[in-house]
């Protein structure tokens, strides 16, 4: 299991390739992944950039605990969470979650769990800058 908090743009496909190439040869029958990307609109407004703040120390710990919980609940071979912090532009990847398992149900379900738990528990906060130059904190995550 791996947790990465990164301050610069990352390539989710490259991260996923590195993750799958490090799996024990032949064990995984299924790999599920989720990529979250910054949109250029929110609540009807044009968003030109965003700053993602986090709580260093707690963030890593919370994400590792979420992966631990997933490994208790499903038969998982390995899991990865990569999350961006700092200044972000529309189109940039914000988050990547990857889960490999023997079978697809565990891979799909655990990957969804990682994202939903991260959205509910991991200490990140988004602040948007709008096209008119104003900025605002995102008050809550969408339900899905």
């Amino acid at each position, binding site marked *: 299991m791996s947790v990465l908090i990164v301050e610069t743009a990352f390539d989710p496909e490259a991260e996923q390739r590195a993750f799958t190439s490090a799996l024990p040869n032949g064990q995984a029958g299924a790999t599920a992944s989720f990529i*979250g990307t910054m949109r250029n609109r929110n609540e009807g407004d044009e968003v030109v950039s965003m700053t*993602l*703040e*986090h*709580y260093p*120390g*707690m963030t890593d*710990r*919370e994400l590792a605990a979420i992966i631990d919980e997933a490994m208790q609940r499903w038969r998982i071979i390995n899991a990865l969470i990569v*999350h961006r912090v700092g200044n972000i532009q529309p189109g940039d990847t*914000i*988050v990547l979650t990857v889960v490999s398992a023997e079978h697809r149900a565990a891979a799909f379900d655990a990957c969804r769990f990682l*994202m939903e738990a*991260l*959205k*509910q*528990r*991991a*200490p*990140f*906060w*988004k*602040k948007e800058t709008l096209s008119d130059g104003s900025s605002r*904190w*995102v*008050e*809550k*995550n969408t339900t899905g």
Partner: protein
Amino acid sequence: MMSGIPNSDNRMTIKVKFFASLREAMPQAIDEVDGSDIRTIADVWARATHDSAMPGHVLCSVNLEHCESTDSVTDGDEVAFFPPVTGG
């Protein structure tokens, strides 16, 4: 002084952090509170904010773990207050 053992006069020093909109709303930066009447997370909030009421949406942690405002604190703890999380 070992963490978790109060000083001889029961004074405690608690490290305090505020994040995101809560940090910006603080009139001045504060990074620790101390006193002999601090027992819970809510007491830490009251001391750090000059007895302002804690808004219902505020979340908290102690020593990097989510907690409730009624949870106890001990000398040397790190307490954080933050709005609902919006990662992912």
